[in-house]
């Protein structure tokens, strides 16, 4: 087992974003590897940004656990393309955490900035705080977003959560913002709290809203009541802007009439 502790150093120009996609468990398997990060247009060594402590040995990514300490709220792309092992982030994390991730676990004890788990293929992300916009979404111009894996957000999510979702599962324990699951194609999006305008232009997949869906879109057809885990919900099919092959379950909904 290898434990890597990365403690963020105090920074000059602390608001400039740092891109650190080199931080994945697999990369620490190679003792010869140089770790470069970018702060603005300057390429720096990992040690310019972090105090690095490495203990133990590992043969596979699964045996590597990385802990990020300190203020990492401006550090982007941590865990990008991660395929195994574990990353624990003790406080907040910057944008694009877990992009393209295909395996392993990322645990965020604070909040996550936007594009958490963008285009994720597999693995698991748990965010104990809130996630900003576009959690589990896609990239500009691309038809499909997240395709597999699980994102679980214990707090609230911002707007466009699960945009173009095409597989996998997103669970939001708090509220979601506007337009969760917009252009969803497949996969499952669960919102334990409230949200507005879920699943516009839905082409497939499933969305469950256990609070109130505000400004519910009028192009979903009410298919009557049913139950999920003993909770009475209303099932909707839609979106009838296209073929109506998706399903939304909601406990309450309100329309903008």
């Amino acid at each position, binding site marked *: 087992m290898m434990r890597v502790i990365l403690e963020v150093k105090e920074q000059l120009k602390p608001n400039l974003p740092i891109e650190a996609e080199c931080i994945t468990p697999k990369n620490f398997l190679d003792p010869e590897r140089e770790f470069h990060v970018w702060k603005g247009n300057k390429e720096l060594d990992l040690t310019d940004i972090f105090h690095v402590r490495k203990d133990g040995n590992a043969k596979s990514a699964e045996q590597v656990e990385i802990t990020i300490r300190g203020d990492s709220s401006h550090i982007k792309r941590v865990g990008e393309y991660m395929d195994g092992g574990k990353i624990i982030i003790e406080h907040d994390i910057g944008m694009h955490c877990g992009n393209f991730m295909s395996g392993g676990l990322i645990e965020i004890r604070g909040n996550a900035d936007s594009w958490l788990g963008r285009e994720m293929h597999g693995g698991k992300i748990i965010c104990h705080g809130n996630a900003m916009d576009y959690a589990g979404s896609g*990239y*500009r*111009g*691309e*038809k499909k977003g997240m395709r597999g894996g699980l994102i679980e957000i214990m707090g609230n999510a911002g707007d466009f959560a699960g945009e173009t979702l095409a597989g996998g599962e997103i669970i939001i324990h708090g509220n979601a913002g506007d337009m969760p699951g917009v252009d969803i194609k497949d996969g499952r999006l669960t919102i334990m709290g409230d949200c507005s305008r879920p699943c516009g232009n839905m082409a497939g997949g499933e969305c469950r809203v256990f609070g109130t869906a505000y400004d519910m879109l009028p192009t979903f057809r009410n298919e009557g009541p049913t139950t999920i885990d003993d909770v009475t919900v209303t099932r909707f099919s839609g979106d009838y802007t296209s073929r109506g092959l998706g399903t939304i379950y909601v406990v309450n909904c309100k329309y903008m009439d």
Partner: protein
Amino acid sequence: MKTLLIKNAYVIDPIQNINGETMDIAVRDGKIVDDVKNPDEVIDAQGMLTLPGGIDSHTHFSGTKVNFGRYMSPEDMRAGRTSRKGDMHATAGYSVPTTYGNSYRYAKMGYTTLLEGAMAPMEARHTHEEFRYTPLQDCLANTLFDGNWFALQAIQDGDIKRLAGVLAWYLSASKGFGVKLTNPGGTEAWGFGKDVSCINEPIPRFGITPREIIVKMIEANEMLNLPHSVHLHCNNLGKPGNYMCTLDTYDAIPDLNDKRQSLYSTHVQFHSYGGSSWKDFCSKAEDIARSVNDKPHIVIDTGQVMFGKTTTMTADGPMEFNLYRLYHNKWSNHDVEMETGSGVIPVQYKKKNLVNAIMWSIGLELGLLVDDPWRCILATDNPNGAPFVKYPEVMALLMSKEYRDKEFATLHKSTGKRVILPSLERELTWNEIAIMTRSAQARALGLVDYGKGYLGEGAEADIAIYPIDVATTDPTRDYERIINGFSSTEYTIKRGEVVCRRGTCTPEGNHATYWVKPHVSPKYDMSTDSTFIDDFNRYYSIRMANYPIGEEYIGRNVCMETEASI
């Protein structure tokens, strides 16, 4: 007065009938000369295949619709990004790269001259702006006339001389090179969401048929004595059964020029389809090739499809709408008032898709079934059939039956029932590949007189030196070496300067824009024709005074002046 000597080059230069001779090439001041004393630079090309610079006679690399392809495709952009390196600017994109991306990648493959296949004259300024940032190739642009109101009006009125006058004005005003027709009549019908079925159906408003448009345009084109013939994208592109329309079109083409073809028929693969629907879709390459073989006044390019992601883009607006209905992918359309249309759609050609597999086969069948390589040009209609970076693979497929069979085995199982490709034994020679990638283009475009496409004295020193030793390479077996060798030159030389060395490019290549300026008599000079001027200012949304492209947009350029017979 810079001089360069290329020693021991293994030269294939079909225009000069040189088929594999080891020789020296001397260059002075951008031109090939007999000899140079104490050259400033010497390149030893021992054991390297040396050809005239490649010419792409039908590619979409600059202008409104190409840039719309970029604008709408961030997902394509991220597929191919490089940072600034030395003198090379950053690039991005795979199927629609940035201008620098196009220029560097073409240069790497030894291409030194590019013809933009379709330029709406109203938006020509845009095309020329992009030419400026395509620094390593000479650039030319075909001007679109398929739905030009003044041209169609002249045809309706039966006044071919006036038609020629209209073509002359627009060509000069747009700084264009040749007359391009894309789905003639169809783009005008598309103005109200309609299309034409083939060449015999009258088009809305003007009541003339595509057949008349094509024939009269060819007549007018020849009246102007233009270097290039009419460049035609036939009606009915991409529809099952369209080969009949293509054959009808070919039968209607008059033979009016004894120096070159009277018609350049482009991306013929997309026009060689049998069947009555996608269900019984099949190849009719044999019928098309037979017709072409019988008609020495027609030159084609193949419009090869290769597998993978790409972006389709054409002035053929209605065709792109059909494609959108088929694929449900994002669809852009851009009608250009009084002139033409255009559309852009991303596609992915898949080996396991029967239709795609048949399309791939048809392109190769055409390359193998047209007897005369001078009349069968290798192109993918970049990026419609595939991005141009796939050219080396197309060359290898044409040169090796073994490679074709290997690829064919990976296609949809039913492909063999719809095509004849596996039965074709022909394997193209080095000389034939050289013809199909530069010499035939130079001749078809009428550029030989301007020093393009050969390595003789007085020619432009556009030279591609490939790390391919012909003596030790058997193209029928060593197709990997063919692909690698044609993918990256040892040297690409533009006007006597090395512009690319093993993929590393220099910032400037002394490139030029070639455009035509036909001189017509005052009677047919539209710039002083009051009917033309009045209608122009009434129906266009910009003033005629603001339409022509000034010379400040074209920088270094070659004006090809012609004396028209009107």
